[in-house]
């Protein structure tokens, strides 16, 4: 595996994004506006935004990076560029890590913007440490990218790829503790909810927990990222039937 070819792939994906300013704007504006809308809607219920706002910081990168990655990699599978790349001296890991790197950068920029706006404009007074929020956003972005890469293998068209988003994201949103506290879930669901990637992203931002607790959440996220990247890599075939 070569770092140079990984970085080249990362640069190429960023160049593609640069030629698509509308997508960049959507990636940055939509989460910022949504958190702003949430803050505004809770303006008559003091304290609620402080509790809810930061937890969403993990949900956005996960959702958006999942969508963007699954559509772009599906495009590589269907337009022949992936086949061409696999006839060249590019390792699968270089391809996969190039995507993770490029969208990881986007996730960091996105979360930096959203959390800066939350603290300075939307009036968030959360006891969370900013660097932890950034790391959670990066992990959540990488989770979305890794799962997008893996699940894009199951879609034949971009239309199908888009349908995977609600199937993948909404159940996690229901169970991650934002709607119903985990302690109040039926036992079976609680076991499932406790090991979902989005739950870990939400919990990793929850304030005033022990270091061990945070490390556990990060460990869950990293395990999912690595696992999904390995599965994603296995879906890239140099030879097909």
């Amino acid at each position: 595996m070569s770092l140079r070819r990984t970085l080249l792939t990362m640069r190429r994906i960023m160049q593609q994004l640069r030629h698509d300013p509308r997508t960049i704007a959507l990636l940055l504006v939509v989460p910022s506006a949504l958190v702003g809308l949430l803050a505004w809607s809770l303006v008559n219920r003091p304290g609620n935004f402080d509790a809810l706002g930061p937890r969403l910081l993990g949900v956005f990168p996960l959702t958006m990076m999942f969508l963007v990655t699954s559509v772009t990699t599906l495009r590589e599978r269907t337009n022949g560029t992936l086949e061409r790349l696999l006839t060249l001296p590019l390792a699968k890991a270089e391809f996969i890590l190039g995507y993770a790197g490029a969208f990881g950068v986007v996730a960091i920029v996105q979360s930096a913007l959203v959390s800066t706006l939350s603290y300075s404009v939307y009036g968030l007074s959360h006891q969370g440490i900013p660097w932890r929020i950034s790391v959670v956003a990066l992990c959540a972005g990488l989770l979305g990218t890794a799962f997008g890469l893996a699940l894009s293998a199951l879609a034949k068209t971009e239309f199908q790829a888009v349908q995977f988003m609600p199937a993948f994201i909404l159940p996690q949103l229901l169970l991650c503790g934002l709607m119903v506290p985990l302690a109040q879930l039926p036992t079976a669901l609680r076991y499932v909810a406790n090991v979902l990637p989005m739950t870990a992203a939400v919990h990793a931002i929850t304030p005033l927990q022990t270091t061990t607790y945070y490390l556990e959440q990060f460990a869950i996220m990293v395990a999912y990222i690595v696992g999904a990247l390995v599965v994603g890599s296995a879906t890239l075939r140099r030879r097909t039937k």
Partner: protein
Amino acid sequence: MSDTLALEVSRLRVVRNHNEILKSLTFDVAPGTLVGLLGPSGSGKSTLMRSLLGVQVITSGSALALGERVGSPVLRRRLGYMAQGSAIYLDLTVRENLAYFAGILDLDDSQVDHVLDVVSLRPFAQRLVSALSGGERSRVSLAVALLGAPPLMILDEPTVGLDPVLRQDLWRTFAQLADEGTTVLVSSHVMDEAARCDRLLLLREGRLLFDDTPGALLERTGAPGYDAAFVRLIEGAS
């Protein structure tokens, strides 16, 4: 090394979904030959090309390219491939596309300029591929295949949808590459393109119907042109 065959295909069979796409093909190609792979659509041309490229699972038989088993990692720097459909990034400029693929092959920017000149696309270097016409996109795809001057080029219908002037230019480029020692395998379903090849492989329903020079095809069939010759061959075979 110079007497290593560019291609050595022996009893190559490909079965996909219980359909026998290639039925025991055997042929050799000497280095520096411009080979036309002709046949109606669905005859197995693309499957043969993908097999030689190493991206198609082979059911039985063997295929060597440049003396190596197809699909071998060492061939990844030595084969130039142009698929049907351009297989380039529409949301990058021409130069960004070429620079990326050149980087993967450890080549520098001088190679990018060189291939841009070969396909006469230097003035389009800064344009987004999505803004180019179909013919221009094919030339970008060909330019990618030319990167690093690979000794064997596999081009799947590179002239489809191009105007006659451009087709003529491309065939001149292929002939020149072959003169310089590159083996070029070009598929087409336009029989009149046969005249420009050193050697013809005619494929029909996964079988090799003819394997000789264009002159021999006209001679054997007594047909006035390549289209007619192909029709006569098929009628003779069935």
